[in-house]
Each structure stands twice: as C-alpha cells, then as structure tokens.
C-alpha cells in the first residue's frame, strides 16, 4: 500500500481557521520571503559566521522592523501577525529572527515607549527603514540573570553623561549605528538605572565582535565597551527609571521569541518527517518504525501545543492584558519544546543530522542560545515559581 501524504502541523492545529485573512497573508508572505531569499544561503551564512547584511533593506521594506509598534513609520501590526512573522523568520534561522527582534523589541521599543517626542521622531522612522541599526546593552560579563548587579555607570558632568562599563553578548552590536545602553547613574543602586541612546562615533564607544560562537553564527554578536563615553543629556530616555525599563523591553522580546522558536521547531520537525519517510533501513522507511513514530508524534504534539499557547497569549496581548508571568510561561515552554524537537530531529537524521546539508543541527545549535538568552530557562522557572507559590526563590 502506498503511504499517505503526511498531515501538516498547520492542519493538525487547524490554525488557519483561527487567523484572519490578513494574518494568514502576512505569514505566507514572510514564509515565501524566507524560502526564496534566506534558505538557499542559510547553511553557508552559518558556516562562514556571516550575517546577511544585504537582506536588511528588504527586511525593512517589508515592514518587519518595529512591526508591532504604532506610528513613526512602523507597521503597527497586531501581536499575532508579528508572532507569525517571527516564526517564519526563525524557520529560516534564529539569527535572522534575532536581528528583527533586537531591532524592534529591544532597540526601537524602549525609544517608542520611554523616549521623548524628539527622540522618537529622530530615531524611529530611520530605524524602521533600517537606515539606523540598533542594539540593546543590558547584560554584562558579570551581570546576566541578575541585571541589577550591573557595573556600568553614568556620571553626570555638565550637559552630558559620561558612561563607563562593558556590555556582553549584545546581538547586532558589531553592525549597530546606535545602542540603547542601561547604566546606573552616579553612585546609585539598581533603582537609579537609566536608558541612554549612544550613537556610533561617540568617543570611547566600541563594539568588538565575539568570535567562535557555535550557535547563532549567522548573527553578529559583540561587546559594547564604554570608556568615558560622553552622551548628551538629550539622549537619556526620560520615561523610565530603574530595572523595569529594560525588563519591560525583555517582556516584548520574550513574547516574540516564544513564537519564533516554533518556527525553528517546525523546520526540524519537517526535516525529520521528510527524512524518515525516505530513509530505508531493514527493508522499509524508518518512518514506519514505532520508535521513530514515537519521536515524531512527541515533536508534533509539543509544537502543536506550543502553537496553541502562543496564539492564545497573542490574542490576550492584542486585548491588552498579558502579564510578564504569562510571557515567561510561553517563552520557557516554547523554547524548551523547540530545543527538544531539534535534538530529536538530530537523532532521527542519524549521521546526516550533524551535517549543515540539513537544517536540523543548525537549529539545534541556535536554540541553545535561545534557551539561554532573554531570560534563561531557569530564570523563567523562578518567575513562574514565584508567581505560583508566592515565594521568591531568586
């Protein structure tokens, strides 16, 4: 008997019927963009540790940068459309999606949310058009999950602040035109943290590239080194003081990641189904083996549940009532399932699972970073644990 055509994940979740025509068209457009423009180069970019800089204008022309923000040249799309777009980008590569997340949720969002009208008009339209590339400086070599312990300081000196410190693991830092840097002011504690827009060309501002990553190789990661960098007072974000500034940006980005990870998971799942249906051992395709089917089924169920969760919380976000705890739930759940799916797919592809000829090992390696950045898996557990028990275990 000829085997039947496999049921797609979209058909399993019956997601199409839950989306508007507009949302489906946005998803399908980004899907085609990634298939035509990114996937043919994905393995090579990863292997050569290169970012597809030449695609940035096209990404901007599609309206993907700051897409969920309203006004100032941004697309103003709803959270579900934005999530669907990010999932398609991460189907291509987590590095591609990271670039879009950082520009929109971490660099543009704080200016949009906490910036002055002058700052918004000055930066946001150019950032949406990719004429200015941004990055987000929060994490430091000795301050990761505990950003309140940051050492970077801003000292008021006349009409400007003088910034000193080092930021680490900064996506897009090597290619950025500006950085939103978070620093403690004068001798203050975490409650004194302010956001500063530091422009490329500022004396004492450098962004050395971090080489040798075995993950997110197609995304430029660097440090931000601030050595008495003088920033005019007008470049302070006026709308927020304290840790809630950077943390609210992270909530935005984490929501996007919880969708994006589904794209990477789907890429691994599809590769595993296609491979196991073709790969013949012991006289028949391995897809017809019970042990293989168990893996496929677990992957599909995980991804489908993650999709349903993301859609539910996306609708909630559009209704305006999502909480950071719910975003932590979604990020932890979906990145976790994506990493498990990628590892299962890696196994199902056998030796071919370690070759860049297939997307699986690339996604599996990328997801190791996604698991750790934007709140490690453990941090999200602590956020949820605190919320669910009332006891803070940080």
């Amino acid at each position, binding site marked *: 008997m000829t085997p039947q055509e496999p049921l797609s994940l979209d058909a399993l979740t019956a997601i199409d019927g839950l989306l508007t025509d507009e949302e489906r068209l946005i998803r399908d457009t980004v899907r085609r963009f990634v298939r035509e*423009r990114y996937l043919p180069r994905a393995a090579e970019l990863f292997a050569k540790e290169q970012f597809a800089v030449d695609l940035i204008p096209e990404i901007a022309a599609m309206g993907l940068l700051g897409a969920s923000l309203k006004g100032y040249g941004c697309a103003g799309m709803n959270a579900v459309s934005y999530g669907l777009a990010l999932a398609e980008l991460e189907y291509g590569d987590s590095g591609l999606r990271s670039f879009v997340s950082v520009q929109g949720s971490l660099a543009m969002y704080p200016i949009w949310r906490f910036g002055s009208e002058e700052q918004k008009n000055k930066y946001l339209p150019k950032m949406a058009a990719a004429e200015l590339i941004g990055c987000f400086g929060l994490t430091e070599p000795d301050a990761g999950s505990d950003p309140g312990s940051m050492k970077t300081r801003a000292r008021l000196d006349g009409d400007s602040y003088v910034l000193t410190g080092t930021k680490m693991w900064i996506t897009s830092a090597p290619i950025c035109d500006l950085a939103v840097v978070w620093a403690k002011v004068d001798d203050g504690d975490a409650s004194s943290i302010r956001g500063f827009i530091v422009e490329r060309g500022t004396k004492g501002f450098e962004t050395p590239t971090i080489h040798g990553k075995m993950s997110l190789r197609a995304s430029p990661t660097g440090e931000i080194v601030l050595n008495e960098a003088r920033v005019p007072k007008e470049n302070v974000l006026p709308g927020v003081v304290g840790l809630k500034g950077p943390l609210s940006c992270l909530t935005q980005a984490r929501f996007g990641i919880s969708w994006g990870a589904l794209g990477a998971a789907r890429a691994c799942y599809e590769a595993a189904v296609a491979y196991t249906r073709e790969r013949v051992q012991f006289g028949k395709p391995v897809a017809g083996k019970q042990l293989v089917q168990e893996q496929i089924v677990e992957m599909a169920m995980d991804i489908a549940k993650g999709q349903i969760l993301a859609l539910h919380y996306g609708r909630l976000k559009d209704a305006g009532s999502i909480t950071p705890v719910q975003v932590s739930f979604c990020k932890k759940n979906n990145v976790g399932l994506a990493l498990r799916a990628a590892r299962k797919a890696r196994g199902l592809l056998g030796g071919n699972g370690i070759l860049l000829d297939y997307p699986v090992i690339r996604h599996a390696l990328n997801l190791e970073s996604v698991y750790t950045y934007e709140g490690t898996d453990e941090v999200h557990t602590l956020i949820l644990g605190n919320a669910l028990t009332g006891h803070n275990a940080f």
Partner: protein
Amino acid sequence: MKILVALKRVADPDNANKVKIPASGEKIDTTGLEWKPNPFDEYALEAALRLTENGTQPKVRAGEVVVVTFGPKETETTLRAALATGADRAIRVDASDDKLDGDLVARALKALVEKEKPDVVLMGKQAVDGDSNQVGQILAELLDWPMATFAATIREEAGALLVGREVDGGVSTLRVKLPAVVTVDLRIVAPTSVYSTKTPSTHKYNDGVRFAALPAIMAAKKKPLVEVKLADLAPDQALKVSYHGFAAPPARKAGIKVKDVSELVSKLKNEAKVL
C-alpha cells in the same frame, strides 16, 4: 498606462496530490484543497507592476493596475493578496468554478475591457490546473486587438510594447501597438525582463515575484474591490467545453537497477527499444 490583469485561483500546485477524483470520474473533488493564485497570473501581476513604475521607487506609481478574477466569494482572498502586492483596485466576477470555460471567461473579459478601457490586458499564458491556454488568445480575437503570447520580456515604448517570446532556437520579438493583450511565461519575472519607459536600462529587479510589504497587507482591505455579476458581462452563459471524464494518472511502476553499462545498453536496445 492602465493595465487589467486577469488572475485565476488554482489548487495549490505544491499539493497537487491532494486533488481527488471520485470513482464516478465526472469531476474533480475540490473540497479541502488549498488555493493559490495561478503562478503565471502572479507573474502577469508582477509584470504589470513593473510596467507602471520606474524600478527604483516602487511606491511612485505611473498608471493603474486593475485585477480581476472569476469565482465565488472566497476568491476575494486572491484579489486582496494582489492589492497588497501593489494592484490599485480589484473586480470579482461572481461565478461558480464549474460553470466557466475559456470562451465564457474571454467573452466576459471583453465586456469588462470595453468598460474599463485598459491599454494592456495581461495574464498568465495558461492556468496550471486546466492548462487550457485559451483565454488570452480568444480575448484578443474578440477585441480585435494585437496579441503577444508567452512573453518572456516586455519593454514599453511610446504607444507600443516590444515583446520577446522564447521559441525553439531563439527569441521572436514582436512590436504590438496598444491596446493589446499579452500573456506571460515564467521568465517574465527575471531581473531584466520588464522595463517601463521610466525604468533605467541598468535597473535589475530581484528574481521572481515581489513581496508585499506587511503594512500594505493591512492597508489592502481599504482598497476598492467590487463585485460584478457574470450575467451583466456575458448574458449568454452557455459553455463550449464539456468535460467527459477525469482520471488520475496511473501510478508509476518501480524502476529496475542494472549491474553495469553493458546491461543498460542491452536493455535500452532490446526491451525499451530506444537505441
């Protein structure tokens, strides 16, 4: 320049194996099929957009692109996608898929052309479902307009189009005076295939059909989309084509493996009899 682009939706060619034929063989079962615009018609839309711009500023439009399709309400999804990609307005001729043939569509399009008065009618050389390859030709005949089929390149000139058509052994180039009907082949979306009078000759497009900007997708619902009754365009709805039966292609038999070249040659000679 005003261009009318005729679009047809077809069962997703990437999922052609989902097309089911009931045992009676009297029709194709369309339930559960995913619909996509006919690829050649998408290429026609891309060509129309290239003919109404200068290549470097896609938002500066030089002319109007009107898209039309025939079908039930759901086909408006296809039209909205075309509007998002850059068409200015859309017309849906309300019709049922199985009560149309190339002749009826061409007759209705003729009535629409007389109303809309475009300079060019563009469409795919054929739809990938029925592969009839008739509508453009019949329409040109009914309108008594010049026609160029299988266009691989189009260069706009004053009052005319210079159309390159790939034929066996070379390229046939036609100059068609406007108004005209042009049907397009797949290479019309190559980087240097289409030039308006405003496009610099050094301009190169990305290969393929452009991507709709996401804000344009959201704005597409504000663009005009009107419904027209088929009867208002074609009072006589008699079909000239009748289908006598459908059958799935026979399943391919498994091939054989040969040990060496001499066995291959022997089999080609004695069994396949192709040598």
